[in-house]
Every structure is written in structure tokens, then in C-alpha cells.
């Protein structure tokens, strides 16, 4: 992938704080990490795009992972945010498992390939159990970033 992990997933967009218990609120919670990192110029627009995608079909992809995502001009550059839920969130995933590792991808409109490319690269890396374990074990945003930086090709 042609993205620098520090740029795509800066530590400011990673939290180890427990997210809200509801999926909808967690989607907003992750968006706010990107907002606080000054990459969002239209929060409402971005949030609506995420919800719209979620209404189409869930982004819970199983194995304890959810990847809500959207293309929206509400963001200024391709951005990923991450949180980890100890409690587990009901994402209505097909394997009926709660989501513990949640990634949110926001990409400006127009670069449709970017969007799919980030999603598939991330999914590919998350298929490896050792990567998921690494994300569960990491004790800091830097640790999370390092695991993903290594795993994403």
C-alpha cells in the first residue's frame, strides 16, 4: 500500500480508551478522534456518510473485527482511526461475534480506489491471527501503530 502508516493512522487517531457500548456512538467516537486531529471539515457530512454505509450492510466482518468506512468530502485526507472494545460491540456481524477491534476508514470522495485499497489491505493483514493478537496485546497507541505498520503491505 502506498501509504505511510504515520500519515494514515497517526497515534492521535488511536485510543485504548473503552469506546461507548453502542455501535452508532462508537462510530461517532472514532470520527471525533479524526476531528480532534484536525482532518475533518464537515463532521455531519462525514458521520452521515458512515451511517449511510452502515445502513446498506454491516461493516462487521467477523473474527471480532469491524471496519466502518466511508468516502466523504468531510475529510481532508485518507484517515484511519482505531479503538479496542473490551466489552465487545454488537455490529450484527455474520459470524455473530461481537466486535473488539474497530477501525474506521475515511477517504475523500473521488479516490475510489484508495478507499477499496485501504479496506482490502487492512482486511488482509487482519486475517493473520498474530496480527489480531498483537492488537489485543498492545499497551499504547504506538504499539498498535507498530503492529499495523508491520502487517500492512
Amino acid at each position, binding site marked *: 500500500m502506498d501509504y505511510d502508516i504515520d500519515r494514515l493512522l497517526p497515534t492521535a487517531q488511536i485510543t485504548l480508551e473503552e469506546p461507548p457500548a453502542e455501535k452508532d456512538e462508537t462510530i461517532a467516537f472514532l470520527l471525533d478522534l479524526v476531528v480532534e486531529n484536525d482532518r475533518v471539515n464537515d463532521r455531519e457530512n462525514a458521520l452521515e456518510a458512515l451511517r449511510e454505509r452502515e445502513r446498506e450492510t454491516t461493516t462487521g466482518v467477523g473474527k471480532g473485527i469491524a471496519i466502518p468506512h466511508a468516502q466523504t468530502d468531510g475529510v481532508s485526507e485518507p484517515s484511519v482511526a482505531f479503538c479496542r472494545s473490551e466489552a465487545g460491540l454488537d455490529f450484527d456481524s455474520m459470524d455473530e461475534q461481537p466486535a473488539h477491534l474497530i477501525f474506521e476508514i475515511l477517504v475523500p470522495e473521488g479516490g475510489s480506489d484508495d478507499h477499496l485499497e485501504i479496506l*482490502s489491505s487492512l482486511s488482509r493483514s487482519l486475517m493473520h491471527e498474530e496480527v489480531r493478537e498483537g492488537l489485543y496485546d498492545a499497551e499504547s497507541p504506538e504499539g498498535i501503530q507498530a503492529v499495523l505498520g508491520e502487517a500492512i503491505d
Partner: protein
Amino acid sequence: MAERLVRVVPEAGLHARPASEFVQTANEHDCEIRVAAVDSGGNEEDEPVDASSMLGVTSLGVGHDERVKLIAEGEESEDALDALEEVLSTPENGDSGECDGDSESEGNTSKANGEEE
């Protein structure tokens, strides 16, 4: 073992709703099904993944008008491949309107025959 090359018709590619229909269909069949990207956009490896895993299918990054190879093993292989090919060959039916969320209409609620005036 049965194999088939199928072109992905839906605009979204093997992603979003077409992907979840694909995975659901794979799960409904009692055989082992794998899927690989053929005209790989991002993924150079072309390694088949479990078709019943949403994570696996998402990892392929298959776009509109690209092809996939379906590989099935087991008794229902041909049926499964037929059903999966159908999902991949069906363009998404229009915008689903403004109705709140899942408005998969139940088709024509059949009127009882005897009730005609």
C-alpha cells in the same frame, strides 16, 4: 472439485451489499468454497480465501468488472457455484429508495384468489 471464473457485475465490486450476499450464499451451501482475485487490483498474491468469511472476501479488494475464481469442493459444489455466480452477475437493483433501512419489499402480497369483486 469445481472451478469457475466469474466477472463481478455490481458497481460496488465485491464489497458492501454484494459482498455480504456473496458470503451469505456461500454459508448456505454445505461445501467448502474458496474465492480468489484474478484481475487483482491491489492484491498480487491471488491466493484463494474462504468464501464464507467476510474478512477474507473484503481482503480481496475485487472491483467492478474484475474477475474472481470460485473453487468449490463437496457435494453441493455445482449448486453453490451457480448461486454465487448469480450473486456476482446481478447488478444492484436500483436505489432502494428512502424507506428506512431494510425495505426488502416482500414482493406482491398475493391476494386471495376468491376475493375478486
